């Protein structure tokens, strides 16, 4: 099939591979000979990337797996075709002086959280694991950075944090990460608009090929990756290092069963929390969302 005239991609601080690709102009090189005009758009968060996809302002965009599911549930015509990372970007945090040691201690306490994001799902699942529900704690809905401020001011007792703010709170304020669970993070996935995938399947495959290139480079050059993120996002290197080396696995690529399971569990948790309507068929939606065909042939690591 023919390549499109223009290719609209996103990049984001929480998608390190995209930083590499954009920095090294890998996409531009790949599509140079086809005369494709490449347009980079920054996504400030999963919801932004999904919004842009929904409006046709992006062809291919990155998001957390659970966010992609939510988008799909609300009618966003996308497919998830590739995994660029397995991040552990969220954890439950408290101040040293609150005495909170485990999730069970949260009973009756207030927790800052951003609704609908991975930390939100993470919090709900963590509570469920410890026999608690949303009603046992007081949710305070705040944007990520504001949650951190509220925590350090003492307005809330805990915070469902997100990197890199999480890492910097950890480094600068000795915030205590009292609950971590990598499995409850829902992957970083690449989404493509359905009509774009149908019209330009080759292009999607070639983008995934480039992503693989970038991912391999990132794996080979961890220090350079840290430096890249630190300069691009203007965050301290220590924060970037903590985020990338301690909490991000870049060793996955093909989308399939593991992603399906994690996202399904997240979807059920969201349903329980009332973020997703009880009538929604999560599994069915997920079937429509995840399309392994574009990345099935890829070799691991």
């Amino acid at each position, binding site marked *: 099939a023919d390549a499109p005239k223009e290719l609209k991609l996103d990049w984001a601080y929480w998608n390190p591979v995209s930083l590499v690709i954009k920095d090294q102009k890998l996409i531009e090189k790949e599509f140079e000979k086809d005369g494709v005009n490449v347009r980079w758009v920054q996504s400030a968060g999963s*919801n932004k990337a999904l919004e842009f996809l929904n409006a046709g302002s992006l062809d291919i965009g990155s998001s957390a797996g659970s966010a992609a599911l939510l988008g799909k549930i609300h009618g966003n015509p996308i497919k998830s075709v590739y995994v660029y990372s397995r991040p552990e970007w969220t954890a439950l945090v408290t101040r040293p002086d609150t005495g909170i040691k485990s999730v069970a201690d949260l009973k009756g306490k207030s927790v800052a959280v951003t609704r609908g994001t991975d930390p939100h799902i993470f919090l709900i699942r963590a509570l469920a694991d410890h026999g608690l529900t949303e009603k046992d704690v007081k949710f305070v*809905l*705040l944007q990520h950075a*504001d949650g951190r401020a509220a925590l350090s001011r003492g307005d809330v007792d805990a915070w469902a944090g997100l990197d890199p703010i999480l890492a910097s709170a950890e480094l600068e304020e000795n915030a205590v990460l009292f609950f971590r669970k990598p499995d409850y993070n829902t992957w970083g996935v690449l989404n493509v608009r359905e009509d774009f995938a149908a019209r330009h399947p080759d292009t999607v495959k070639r983008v995934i090929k480039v992503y693989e290139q970038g991912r391999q480079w990132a794996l080979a050059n961890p220090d350079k990756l840290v430096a890249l993120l630190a300069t691009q996002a203007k965050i301290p290197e220590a924060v970037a290092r903590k985020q990338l080396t301690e909490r991000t696995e870049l060793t996955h690529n093909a989308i399939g069963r593991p992603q399906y399971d994690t996202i399904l569990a997240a979807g059920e948790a969201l349903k329980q929390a009332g973020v997703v309507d009880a009538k929604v068929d999560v599994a069915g939606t997920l079937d429509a969302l995840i399309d392994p065909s574009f990345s099935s042939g890829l070799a691991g690591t």
Partner: protein
Amino acid sequence: MSTTDTLIAPPPAARTPLSRRWLARLPLGLVLPVVLALGWELAVQSGLADGRLVAPPSRILATLWALSEGFELWRHVQATLARVAVGFLLGVVAGTLAGALTGYSPLARRILDPSLQGLRAVPSIAWVPLFILWFGIFEESKIALIAVGVFFPVYLGVLGAIVSIDRKIIEVGRVARLSGAGLFRRILLPAILPAYLLSLRSGLGLGWMFVVAAEFMGASEGLGYLLLDGQQLGKPDQIVAAIIAFAVLGKLTDGLLAGASAPLLAWQDTYRKP
């Protein structure tokens, strides 16, 4: 030369035929939104347009209806309305006092005005982290933020109107040897009243706008929350429903304000009442 519906046309005299008087009572303001809504509904129904991103009115009504069952919409409206009301009052008082002070005293103007004019340009969202720091994340900070939004148009309106009052009118006050609060209450305020009421309406509009930023700060109810929730979770119907709620409430409160202030302007010698 000019049609009968223009400002310069003769004012409605006794000759106005019945049909026109009947027309005058029609809520013509509803025509535009209703026509647009029907048009969009038809376009979507007939498949001419895709209603996925902007839902057709039927679906928005369904969303509103779903939200208002269990009084959820009402809860959001109430929360926001209460915040806007208190924030508006505070903002108006502060804006009026500050505008009066700087309008009255050139020294105060030269000291305060440049800073205030600068802060006027700071977007609502930019205040969020600072307000969290200063006032915490509870009701105080939300109300304070809304008050900030209201403050600036009122301040600018009062100041600007005071410095352009006709000298002749001020002199009457000076002959009565008014100064300070007396001059403000008996001359400056009434003289700027039309402009002042306009600035209140402008401020009210900004109060509504600042609600979203305010409800960024740890709200779990309110229209701003509804909007943000819709955006974050990608629920277009809810977004449009929130927009419509904002527009309806904005129009209602503005109409209330304009209506309540109309008697205060009965003395105006304008060509035709608004």
